[in-house]
């Protein structure tokens, strides 16, 4: 019986995904001007000699304690530098920074705001962490709300990490890279939150000053085409149908008109054996002055770095950055215990627990399930 | 058919007592007379003809007279040194008599390329080939056997006799377990006759690869232990061997020169007074006329001193009753009240060695040669040097110097002192 139902589900889905008609790229209308799909937009990535270095930056955060009215998180931002496949030792700034963020609900101007305080793990990290004053958000900020519901404090708490990535990138550019080098952030260059663009601008400024290409590569993409297909899936289909070479990039897809997303978009396939393609963005002000050869050179370096067997087609530098930025469960537990211990010492557990327990029923149920 | 006599361990001059000395000589004379009677072609003496390298000249004189008689009858005497009648430091009587032509030493060899090559001596009459290795004190001849070129000896053709003066590990009686000895594998194989000496027990034992190895024992003995063995029934004598190109017959000829009586008395659980009374009573009742009497008193007196027993008196009683000689062995006698150092041993020599062996550990020295068995041997050698009497014709200062020179040589310090 169930088998029959499953068959029906798949048949229905199969019918819905009609990639014979790719349509056009579809991004939210007023901020982007899209370009129709065209085989001409595929360009091969040719392997050339280059001594451009690539710096990869990624951050991670994880919640240690949470309640509807507060969230304590551990945040980490990490960078590495590669020249082709070889790692370059950094020496001028710490390779990773860590800080705790404590976000709590405050009542201001008749509204609930979520304010975040920053606590660097070491004094050495002070200058790399975002300003607390930039981390006050209205719980009813549309960009943060979930549907019509107030923003989730946990999500708001994670914004500090994002700001830290921008700020740290700036210092990476300033202290570790030279003219012509490339910085690759994990994720899009789009700034989504209040004050985020200030951080982005500062990073861009420094990169422009030093002639360092500022870019970002997204692991995932939620973009679509006008026929309901995923944008990346459609371009892949197009590449397969067009028998484009083993390494390629697709550009242009759309032009950004938004000051919150100053990027030129590329879809890239970085390894011949790669199944996946990724969205790659270059700071627009730089991209428009890059020649095709320079773009090829940048992407070529990315290709060289994207040959790791564990994830071909995805830059190894980002694999490494992700691994080192990630907050692991074991770390969480250690810190959680330390925090709870301090709470207990203060005698504040009853106070804390009242709020924590208003949110943790799900966890209890999970625990009961085993 | 030819014949030879195999004699060993005569130890002429061993006893100080004139009676015993005379008996010893008598046994020797008897043996040589028997050789004449048996019409032997030659005599082999496997060491210890004399009891020291320079024995009493009176004894030597008597022995020479007897041996000259043998020689005059055309019977050759072939000898090797024993552990007693050889000295590494000075000439021995055996050398002198050999030089005089009275007998022939059959030990001659040289060390070449680390091997000791021995030379055969051929008996002209019988064409028997004789060769041998002498004995030395405390078994020092061992090192000769270790480097002996056996192969050349074994290859020699003809009727061969090997004379040696050493105990063999495999054939030592149990009571001689402490005696220095060598393994039989040190002897060359394939000889027709092995003429052994040094072990004062008559023995004929077959060993794989060697045939029969023979020790004739003593003619009379050289210590009271020998005399006690004689009294216990141990035969004294020598072998007569008939041969042509191989041994045809071997028989033992006795040289008993007196009757023995051995009496043992245990003083355990008796005090000295009672022991004395009983001993006198028993001794008086012994039938000792014409006998060599050996009285052994042993055990632990429950009271009184051992010197409470008048052994001189006991001896006198025995002699008065006709004993030709009386010896009282008190080595195993002790008293509860007065315990001295107890050392086991069948004779003085063995007691000396055991005493040194047991107490050498108490002397703290660094030099390895003065420790353990090596130290014991050195002490015994030194004792043997220092025990020598001044010769009658020797000046006192010469005697002292001789003692010094020999002592230093024994201790291996001659070069250092120079």
């Amino acid at each position: 019986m169930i088998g029959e139902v499953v068959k029906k589900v798949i048949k229905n889905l199969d019918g819905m995904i009609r990639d014979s008609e790719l349509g056009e790229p579809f991004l939210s209308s007023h901020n982007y001007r899209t370009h129709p799909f065209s085989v001409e937009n595929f360009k091969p990535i040719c392997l050339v000699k280059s001594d451009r270095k690539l710096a990869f930056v990624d951050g991670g955060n994880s919640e240690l304690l949470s309640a509807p009215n507060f969230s304590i998180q551990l945040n980490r931002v990490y960078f590495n530098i590669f020249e082709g496949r070889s790692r370059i030792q950094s020496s001028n700034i710490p390779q990773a920074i860590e800080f705790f963020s404590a976000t709590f609900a405050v009542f201001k101007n008749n509204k609930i705001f979520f304010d975040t305080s920053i606590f660097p793990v070491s004094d050495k990290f002070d200058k790399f962490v975002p300003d607390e004053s930039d981390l006050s958000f209205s719980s009813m900020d549309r960009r943060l709300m979930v549907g019509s519901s107030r923003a989730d404090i946990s999500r708001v708490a994670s914004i500090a990490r994002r700001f830290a990535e921008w700020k740290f990138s700036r210092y990476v550019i300033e202290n570790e890279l030279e003219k012509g080098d490339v910085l690759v952030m994990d994720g899009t260059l789009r700034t989504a939150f209040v004050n985020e663009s200030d951080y982005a601008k500062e990073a861009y400024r420094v990169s422009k000053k030093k002639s360092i290409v500022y870019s970002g590569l997204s692991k995932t993409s939620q973009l679509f085409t006008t026929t309901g297909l995923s944008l990346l899936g459609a371009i892949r289909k197009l590449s397969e149908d067009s028998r484009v070479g083993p390494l390629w990039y697709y550009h242009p897809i759309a032009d950004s008109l938004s000051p919150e997303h100053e990027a030129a978009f590329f879809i890239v396939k970085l390894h011949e054996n790669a199944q996946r393609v990724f969205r790659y963005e270059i700071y627009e002000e730089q991209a428009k002055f890059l020649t095709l050869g320079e773009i090829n050179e940048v992407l070529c370096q990315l290709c060289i770095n994207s040959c790791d067997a564990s994830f071909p087609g995805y830059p190894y530098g980002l694999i490494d950055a992700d691994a080192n930025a990630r907050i692991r469960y074991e770390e969480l537990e250690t810190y959680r215990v330390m925090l709870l211990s301090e709470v207990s010492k203060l005698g504040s557990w009853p106070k804390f627990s009242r709020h924590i327990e208003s949110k943790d029923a799900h966890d209890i149920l999970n625990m009961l399930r085993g | 058919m030819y014949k030879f006599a195999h004699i060993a361990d005569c130890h002429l001059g061993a006893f100080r007592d004139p009676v015993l000395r005379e008996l010893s000589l008598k046994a020797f004379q008897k043996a040589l007379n028997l050789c004449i009677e048996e019409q032997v072609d030659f005599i082999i003496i496997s060491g210890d003809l004399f009891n020291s390298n320079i024995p009493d000249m009176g004894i030597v004189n008597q022995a020479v007279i007897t041996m000259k008689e043998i020689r005059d009858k055309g019977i050759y005497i072939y000898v090797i040194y024993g552990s007693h009648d050889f000295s590494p430091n000075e000439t021995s009587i055996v050398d002198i008599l050999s030089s005089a032509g009275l007998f022939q030493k059959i030990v001659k060899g040289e060390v070449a390329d680390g091997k000791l090559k021995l030379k055969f001596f051929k008996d002209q009459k019988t064409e028997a080939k004789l060769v041998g290795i002498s004995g030395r004190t405390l078994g020092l001849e061992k090192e000769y056997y270790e480097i002996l070129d056996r192969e050349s000896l074994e290859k020699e053709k003809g009727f061969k006799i090997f004379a040696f003066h050493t105990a063999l590990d495999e054939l030592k009686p149990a009571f001689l377990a402490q005696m220095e000895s060598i393994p039989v594998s040190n002897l060359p194989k394939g000889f027709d006759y092995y003429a052994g000496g040094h072990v004062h027990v008559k023995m004929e034992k077959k060993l794989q690869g060697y045939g029969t190895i023979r020790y004739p024992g003593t003619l009379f003995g050289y210590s009271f232990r020998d005399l006690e063995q004689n009294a216990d029934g141990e035969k004294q004598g020598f072998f007569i061997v008939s041969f042509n190109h191989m041994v045809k017959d071997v028989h033992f000829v006795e040289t008993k020169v007196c009757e023995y009586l051995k009496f043992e008395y245990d003083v355990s659980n008796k005090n000295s007074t009672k022991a004395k009374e009983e001993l006198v009573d028993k001794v008086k009742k012994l039938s000792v006329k014409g006998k060599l009497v050996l009285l052994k008193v042993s055990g632990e007196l429950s009271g009184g001193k051992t010197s409470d027993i008048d052994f001189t008196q006991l001896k006198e009683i025995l002699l008065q009753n006709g004993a030709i000689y009386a010896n009282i062995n008190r080595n195993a006698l002790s008293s509860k009240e007065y315990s001295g150092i107890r050392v086991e041993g069948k004779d003085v020599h063995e007691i000396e060695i055991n005493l040194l062996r047991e107490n050498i550990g108490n002397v703290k020295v660094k030099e390895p040669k003065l420790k353990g068995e090596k130290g014991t041997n050195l002490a015994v050698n030194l004792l043997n040097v220092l025990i020598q009497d001044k010769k009658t014709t020797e000046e006192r200062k010469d005697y002292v110097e001789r003692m010094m020179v020999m002592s230093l040589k024994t201790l291996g310090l001659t070069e250092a002192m120079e």
Partner: protein
Amino acid sequence: MSVCGQIIAGQFGKILIREKSGEKIELGDLLVVEEGENSVILQVYDLFYGSQISQVARELISGMKLEGLGAGMEFLEPQLRNYILAESKAVLRISEQKTPKMLPDFFGTVRRIEKKDLEFLSIPEKPIYLGKVRSGSKIVGVDTYLNGLDALSHHILISSTTGRGKSNLVKVMLCSVLGQGAFGILVLDAHDEYYGRTGKGLKDHPKARDNLRYYSTNPPAGTNTLMVNLKSIEPRHLEGVIHLTDAQQHAVRLYRATYGDEWIESIVRGKKVEGISPITLTVLQRIVRVSLSIYLEDDEIICRNRVFSNAAGESTAKDIVKNLENGKTIILDTSKLGDEAELLIGSIIANEVFYRYQGYKSDGKLAEKVPVSIVIEEAPRVLGADKLASLGGNIYSKIAREGRKFNIGLIAITQLASVIPPDILANMNTKIIMGNELLSERHALIGSAAQDLSDDDRNIASLDRGEAIVSSIFTKFAVPIKVPLFEDYLESCSKSVEKRSNTVFVG
């Protein structure tokens, strides 16, 4: 300091070390984690792979490579993401020379052991050389010794399967002992492999002339005939060697009482004793013929293996014991003898030594005497539980249990430690463990070792020829060693001895 790894996790007794890329840490490696004055020696007992890459990804990549599909793909920075993890345990805190009771510092770096770390392994007073300290398969240039004065009387067990170098080890030990003359060692050489009848052997030691005696039924020139007089045999020597029923034991004692030390000859000659039936006599004659190869032929006592005699060899046993007391090594070539004859001869001598030393102790002279040890191959023949159960105790088991009090010990060599009763095994305070594939044997050894070797099962199974672990109450930790080849060690012994002066023949 050349780092070869770092502590990354674990617990007491299971410290996890990540190997520095290219360092090739081995099973059994000795590593040092430096903590100032409190450096600790760790020993690796297990190795496994670690990876930052998921198993699935690794399997896939491997599949692609194997099938020729993975061109142009590799693991970047493989040394960071794929690595070796070593499980280790702390065996010694160097400064205190004790087993550590604390964990080393977390994330402490480790390096390979060096000579200077083992300076505490000094040469004891009366050393028995075993070999050089080994770290994995590498030799650390530090010599390992046992203190002979202690180790011999506390018994030594050498165990491994065949072909792992037990005999070579024993030869090296005997070679080391020979030079000193400080111990009496009796070797029951069932395979005639120690003396060196053909080829190099103990006879080639520069001190062999002074300190070595070799007995064989077929002795080469200069060596002794292995021949024991029947009078040397006492009924108690048969205990645990030849199976006798109660009636037979009674009969044997009666013969002894009647005929004194000629009791065996009397049995062989069929002399009667009142109270002993003809059938019992016949059975005894058969036992003597079968076990000792002694029978009557043409009225002459014959011993087929030529080791027993009624005419010679009266002082052989006493000679051997005397030589043992004088610190000599005695090798008895029993290769041509049956088991029972070999064990009986050993029993005669062992009994003699045991009772003498018992006497010395009661006389207060034991301290002046050298320790005596008996090397016995295939020890379960006399120490095996089933043998002891069926034949009863014997002098060897007596020595194993009580010998320590009298400075007499055993060096027991065996492939099968598991068949030796636990109480005897526990008395063997030095165990030299060589390679052994048999799980039950490893467990028996591990279970009775002086140190905790519960994690060393794999280590022991992987021991190569000539490699061993010395577990002793006299060593600070279970020392892994490499035993040198006997021939090489012999050469080194020869260099340190003065040349003998030439013999002067004085005729």
